C-alpha cells in the first residue's frame, strides 16, 4: 500500500480527530474530524459532477480552510488538483484551467464573473462549484448544502491512487510567454513530505506557518507535513503576508513553531516587523527557500531570534527541495558570503555537469542535475520542453538550470543560472514571458527584459523598450497594461526607452550591452 497525500489526512483523522488541523488568521479553525467530513462531502459532489481518477480539478480560491478542504476533496477522488494564483489576472488563470482541461473548477463569487468571461474566451466551459466567499470552511459547506438540497450526492469511497498518479499540477512562468504546468505525482509529494518528517521531527503540538500561496511549491511542506503528523496548519492570508507588522503579530498570536517562507519576507520582517518587541520563543525552526538570503538581513534576524534551527532549503518546483543546509548555531560576524545550498536530500541523488553533460571535477562550476523520487515526470502537454528538461545521456536526471560548485565538505554553493529565468521575491520569473506580454502592447516595437541585482528588492526587473513612434509610453499605462496580463511580481520595476534596441552582429538583441547600461 503506497503512501498518498489523502492517506496522511485519513490517518490523522483516525488518531487526532479532535485536534485542530487548520486555523485561519482570525482564529477560526477546523478539527481533523471535521476536515475529514468536509473533504469527503466535496469528494462525493465532485464524483457526482463526473470527476474520475486521473482527471484535473481547478482550485481558484483565496487561502482558507475551504481551500485546504477542497484540495483533499479533489485528492480523495483520485484526481489531481490545480491551484491557481487568486491574485493573478483572470485571463492567466483561465488559460491554465483550459490548458490542463480541468473537469471542474472550484471558485468563489468574487472571481466568478471574470473567470466565466475569460473561460468563454478560451472556448472552455467546465462546471464550476462557486462558494459565496471562502472562509472558515463555511463557504464550501454552504455551497455543498445548496447543491445537496437540489440533488444529494451519492456517498463514494476515497480513491487511494497509485504512487505514479498525478497529485497536483503547479504552473510556473514559461519562457514562451505562457505558464507551464509542472506535473507532480503522489510519490513526488510523499517522498518529499517523508523527508520533512525525518529532518524536522514534527509533533502534534507543532504549528506550521502557511505563508506561501498554494500554487507555489513551498505550500507542499506547509500543508502536508503538519497534517501528516496531527499538527496544526496556521494559514496566513495573502494581504497580511506582505505587511510586516501584521505578519509579525500573527506569527506571535498563532504560536507558530515551524516557519517557512522566502528570504524576501524574512528580510521585510526583520526590517519593519518590530520583531524585537515580541516574544517569539515558540519558533523552533526557520526554513527559507526560493532565492538567496542577503546575509545582512539573515544576520539581523539571527541576532533577534538566536534560538531556532535555521535551514536553507533549495530546489525548483520540478524536484521540490533537493538540497538543504543547516546554518551553524553562531553566524560569524565577518561572514559576507551567502550560505551554501548544502547537500542533496537522502531521497535524491545529484551530479554537477558541464555543457556537454559530463560530470565536472569537484570544485568546478557546473549545472546541478537531480534524480530520484521527488523529480517531476515533466510538463503538462509539453513533450518538447519535457524532453529538454532532462539530461540527454541519462533522462532520469532533471537539469535544474542552476550553476553550482561543490566544496570539499560536499556542500553545494549556488553560483547563478544558465538561462533567462530569475527569482524575484522567491517567484520564478521567465524574462521571456514578460517580453511576450510587452509585445502585445500596441505601441511597443521592440522589448528586451533583463534582471539586475538590487539591494532592497533582491532582484530588479528592467524593461528596455523601443516604441512605434519613437516616444515614451506612460509608466502608469504600461504598469496597468502588464498587470492585466501578468502577476504583479512579474511587472517590470523600471522601464527605459530607446530609439531602437542595441543589436549584435547577427541582428539579435544585444543583452550584454543592455546589462551594462545605467
Amino acid at each position, binding site marked *: 500500500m503506497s503512501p498518498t497525500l489523502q492517506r496522511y489526512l485519513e490517518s490523522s483523522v483516525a488518531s487526532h480527530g479532535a485536534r485542530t488541523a487548520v486555523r485561519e488568521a482570525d482564529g477560526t479553525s477546523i478539527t481533523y474530524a471535521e476536515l475529514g467530513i468536509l473533504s469527503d462531502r466535496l469528494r462525493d459532489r465532485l464524483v457526482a459532477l463526473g470527476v474520475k481518477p486521473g482527471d484535473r480539478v481547478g482550485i481558484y480560491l483565496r487561502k482558507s480552510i475551504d481551500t485546504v478542504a477542497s484540495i483533499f476533496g479533489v485528492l480523495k477522488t483520485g484526481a489531481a488538483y490545480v491551484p491557481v494564483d487568486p491574485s493573478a489576472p483572470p485571463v492567466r488563470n483561465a488559460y491554465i484551467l483550459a490548458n490542463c482541461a480541468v473537469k471542474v473548477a472550484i471558485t468563489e463569487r468574487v472571481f466568478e464573473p471574470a473567470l466565466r468571461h475569460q473561460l468563454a474566451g478560451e472556448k472552455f466551459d467546465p462546471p464550476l462549484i462557486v462558494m459565496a466567499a471562502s472562509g472558515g470552511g463555511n463557504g464550501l459547506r454552504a455551497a455543498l448544502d445548496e447543491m445537496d438540497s437540489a440533488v444529494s450526492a451519492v456517498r463514494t469511497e476515497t480513491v487511494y491512487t497509485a504512487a505514479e498518479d498525478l497529485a497536483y499540477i503547479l504552473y510556473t512562468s514559461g519562457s514562451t510567454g505562457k505558464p507551464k504546468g509542472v506535473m507532480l505525482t503522489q510519490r513526488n509529494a510523499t517522498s518529499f513530505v517523508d523527508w520533512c518528517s525525518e529532518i524536522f521531527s514534527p509533533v502534534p503540538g507543532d504549528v506550521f506557518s502557511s505563508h506561501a500561496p498554494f500554487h507555489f511549491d513551498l505550500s507542499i511542506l506547509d500543508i502536508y507535513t503538519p497534517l501528516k503528523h496531527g499538527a496544526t496548519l496556521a494559514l496566513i492570508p495573502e494581504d497580511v503576508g506582505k505587511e510586516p*507588522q501584521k505578519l509579525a503579530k500573527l506569527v506571535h498570536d498563532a504560536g507558530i513553531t515551524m516557519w517557512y517562507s522566502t528570504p524576501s519576507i524574512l528580510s521585510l520582517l526583520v526590517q519593519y516587523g518590530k520583531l524585537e518587541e515580541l516574544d517569539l520563543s515558540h519558533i523552533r525552526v526557520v526554513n527559507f527557500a526560493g532565492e538567496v538570503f542577503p546575509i545582512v538581513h539573515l544576520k539581523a534576524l539571527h541576532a533577534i531570534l538566536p534560538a531556532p534551527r535555521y535551514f536553507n532549503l533549495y530546489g525548483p518546483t520540478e524536484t521540490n527541495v533537493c538540497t538543504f543546509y543547516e546554518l551553524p548555531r553562531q553566524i560569524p560576524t565577518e561572514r559576507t558570503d551567502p550560505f551554501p545550498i548544502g547537500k542533496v536530500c537522502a531521497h535524491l541523488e545529484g551530479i554537477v555537469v558541464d555543457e556537454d553533460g559530463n560530470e565536472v571535477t569537484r570544485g568546478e562550476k557546473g549545472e546541478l542535475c537531480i534524480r530520484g523520487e521527488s523529480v517531476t515526470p515533466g510538463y503538462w502537454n509539453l513533450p518538447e520542453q519535457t524532453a529538454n528538461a532532462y539530461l540527454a545521456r541519462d533522462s532520469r536526471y532533471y537539469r535544474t538550470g542552476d550553476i553550482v560548485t561543490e566544496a570539499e565538505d560536499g556542500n553545494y554553493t549556488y553560483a547563478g543560472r544558465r538561462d533567462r529565468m530569475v527569482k524575484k521575491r522567491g517567484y520564478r520569473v521567465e524574462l521571456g514571458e514578460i517580453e511576450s506580454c510587452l509585445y502585445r502592447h500596441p505601441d511597443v516595437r521592440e522589448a528586451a527584459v533583463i534582471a539586475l541585482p538590487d539591494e532592497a528588492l533582491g532582484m530588479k526587473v528592467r524593461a528596455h523598450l523601443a516604441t512605434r513612434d519613437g516616444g515614451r509610453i506612460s*509608466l*502608469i*499605462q504600461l504598469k496597468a497594461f502588464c498587470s492585466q496580463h501578468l502577476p504583479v511580481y512579474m511587472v517590470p520595476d523600471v522601464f527605459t526607452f530607446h530609439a531602437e534596441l542595441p543589436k549584435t552582429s547577427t541582428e539579435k538583441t544585444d543583452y550584454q550591452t543592455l546589462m551594462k547600461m545605467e
Partner: protein
Amino acid sequence: MDRQAIHDTVKTYILEQFLPGEDPNELTDDTPLMTTGILDSLATLKLVTYLEEKFDIAVEAHEADSENLNTLELITDLVARKKK
C-alpha cells in the same frame, strides 16, 4: 495643512520616487497604485514611512493596505483623517 496641499505633496513624492520621468497628468486621483504594481510591498512601506514622518501621523499596520493606499485620493483621505 489643507487637503489640496496634502494631495500635492503626496503626488510629488509618488512621481519622484516610484514613477521617475512620468507625465504628472497621467497620475490621476483614481489611478490604481497597489493593484498595478506601481506600489509594490517595499514601495508601500517606503510610502507609509514617508507619510508618517512628513505629516507627523501614525499609520497602523492594519491600515497599510489597498483600502487606504490604492489611489492618490485614498491616501489623501487617510492623511487628512489622521491630521484632524
